[in-house]
């Protein structure tokens, strides 16, 4: 398995966990990002991820390699969904196995933080009031203008 993957199908946490099982590891930390029913005060009904996969995979694998190098953990991997998702669906999964738990917590936190900052992935949210918006894109509009 590649350390980072993009999946159009539902993510199975049990599969990632088995891939990372290692008799030399005493601690395993898993992060899951779930589709939430609210964002910045608005009711969310569903959302859609657009992923530029060639670069997301390349940069995702780089992030995993950095985490292994920086925190000395034994094994790490992550999967990000693409396409339409419903409430409570699993949007992103990160797993880290390490001899000791402290490094596993820190590496897992690092990976999800960097995934959110660096990967070419965009999220369009569909709201209860009928509107839809690319998340973060209000902030990306130039001063004095309004995005949509």
């Amino acid at each position, binding site marked *: 398995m590649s350390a980072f993957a993009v999946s159009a199908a539902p993510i199975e946490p049990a599969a990632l966990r088995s891939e990372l099982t290692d008799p030399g590891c005493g601690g395993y930390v898993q992060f899951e990002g779930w589709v939430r029913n609210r964002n910045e005060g608005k009711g969310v009904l569903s959302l859609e991820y657009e992923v*530029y996969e060639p670069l997301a995979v390349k*940069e995702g694998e780089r992030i995993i390699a950095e985490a292994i190098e920086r925190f000395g953990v034994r094994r790490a991997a992550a999967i990000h969904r693409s396409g339409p998702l419903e409430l409570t669906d699993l949007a992103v999964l990160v797993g880290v196995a390490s001899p000791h738990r402290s490094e596993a917590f820190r590496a897992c936190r690092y990976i999800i933080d960097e995934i*959110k900052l660096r990967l*070419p992935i965009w*999220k369009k949210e569909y709201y209860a009031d009928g509107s839809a918006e690319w998340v973060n894109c209000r902030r990306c509009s130039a001063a004095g203008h309004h995005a949509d």
Partner: protein
Amino acid sequence: MKVEIRYFAAFREATGISAEPVDTEAGTPAELFAECSRRHPGLAAYSASMVAVNDEMSDLHCALTDGDTVLFFPPVAGG
């Protein structure tokens, strides 16, 4: 100089296209984005936040060369 431009997510919706070949004198992605904003008024409300050149993350002020593919990314929101 000929380059290929690709637009994603909000940028694709703002321009109405996902890619276009252009003939340009822009020396950097930043200059190129300004040029695109004049051609696509919908883009004028935004500034580019991230750019990739030939499938590598790059810098808005790097030097472009003939044949490059330039990917303009709106602010990302993975996770």
